[in-house]
């Protein structure tokens, strides 16, 4: 029985902004299913009383003084941009 449907794969691909062909969708489904099956090992571990760890070692966050630092010029900021216009990054028209 498949636990991962093609719809789920499409949803995840859409959230990830990855375009998959139909063949890739099915291949991805099978592959992710196999990987997820291996990941299932942890489902059996009892963790009711366990706090999650998001950071390996608890270090207090460093704070920075509120002082202006030099940044990039407009030219430097856009130097790697595939498309730029009028000092800005250009993208296909955004519809709100």
């Amino acid at each position: 029985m498949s636990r991962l449907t093609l719809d789920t794969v499409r949803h995840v691909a859409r959230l990830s902004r990855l375009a998959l062909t139909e063949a890739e969708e099915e291949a991805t489904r099978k592959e992710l299913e196999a990987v997820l099956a291996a990941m299932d090992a942890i489902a059996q571990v009892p963790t009711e009383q366990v706090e999650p760890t998001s950071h390996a070692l608890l270090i207090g966050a460093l704070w920075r003084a509120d002082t202006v630092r030099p940044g990039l010029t407009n030219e430097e900021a856009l130097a790697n941009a595939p498309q730029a216009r009028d000092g800005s990054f250009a993208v296909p028209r955004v519809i709100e």
Partner: protein
Amino acid sequence: MPIADFQPVIGLEVHAQLLTDTKLFCGCPTSFGAAPNTQVCPVCLGMPGVLPSLNAQAVRFAVRTGLALGCRVREQSAWSRKNYFYPDLPKGYQITQFERPICEGGALVVDAPSGEIRVRLHHIHIEEDAGKSVHDAEGGASLVDLNRAGVPLLEIVGEPDLRSSEEAAEYLKALRDVLMYLGVNDGNLEEGSFRCDANVSVMPKGSKTLGQRVELKNINSFRFVRQAIDYEIARQVDVIESGGTILQETRLWDTVRGETRAMRSKEDAHDYRYFPEPDLPPLRISPELIESERAQLPELPRALRQRLMSQYGLAADVAGVLTSDRALVTWFEETAALTPDARRVANWCQGELLRVLKETGTSLQALKMTPAMFARLLQLVENGTLSQNAAKDVLDEMVRSGREAQVIVEEKGLGQINDEGAVAAVVDEVLGAHAAEVEKYRGGQQKLFGFLMGQVMKALRGKGNPQLVNRLLRDRLEG
């Protein structure tokens, strides 16, 4: 069911830009109006390899705000990533606080015309702002400016305790005043440094079940708050009345058309995949920081208003105008300390002083006139040297030149003639020259009093003390 049978329920989420010099996670400046993409660095551009570096001042401002609003400040809060794709969001996620925000609870009490409203706060959290996309006229492209990306925001999430658009606007004004008093926000709606989203729902009056709420975005003036909410209330009632259901959606307030419409860009907004930001350890707030911020808390607008009313006997509306600007209250109190009539000072502050500041485009901070000088001007009104009208002219001149009232009065000969002998001589002279009119007055044509009064004032070149002229003239005509 008519619209009056529905109860609107409104909760506001306010985004206030924190008045820091630099962005939340990098050293770029936060000032408004720079050319596109000139206040950016690798961090706020979301370049490969960059990491966030937390601005301490933003944290202090958040703590200060939380304390002022009676929130519980968490000893340890956490950062989260909110994941979505959008051109103005360089990293593909926004760093925000989700599960454990820095402040929880608290409330703001608002004195609205309809009475006192207590708006409970759900929480306050810190997050980074996004950039801005503008449409390019030619070419069908959008242009992305990331100057705003990473600017620190405080999101103040209120409970749905508001029941009308008017209450919403009053709450917003009161909250804005508090933030400005705290020095954490400049209150500028036009530049977007204080903006709000509104969650609006309607339910039949008397119902206990809240209706489906709709989120309204892009409300950037107090007027639009009322318009957008009223429009949305009417729209929701229409939908329900015509048998439809309200959809859970995000709608944009269109200021040009004066209507709300569904936002396409939020189509998959329901799955932001929040998770703890691994690049930032949890945020720990020390008791020392909380105490130091608590010790520095200023008197807040509502308490100050109440004190002005009880201490100086000011009317509520006058106290309200004064407290809309903390600097004006300081000016008032400094002046009032030097004059016997605090109410006169208050009236002049809220009236003539604000007028002349507006006309000359000056701020209190830049004013050449000191409160002491202002007090001496009002003294000249008090002792009758200057009429109200003449004092206004003198005030204009003081603001322009920074000179003392007395100097201006003498130079322009503006002082009132209060010398009874001198005024009496002129009165006698005028009565002598207008014997016919005096005869008619005494014969019952009382309206000629004004004519004679005018002749005396004319002879005194307008500087006669009006009360004195009036009394002497009446004495002679009746006597």
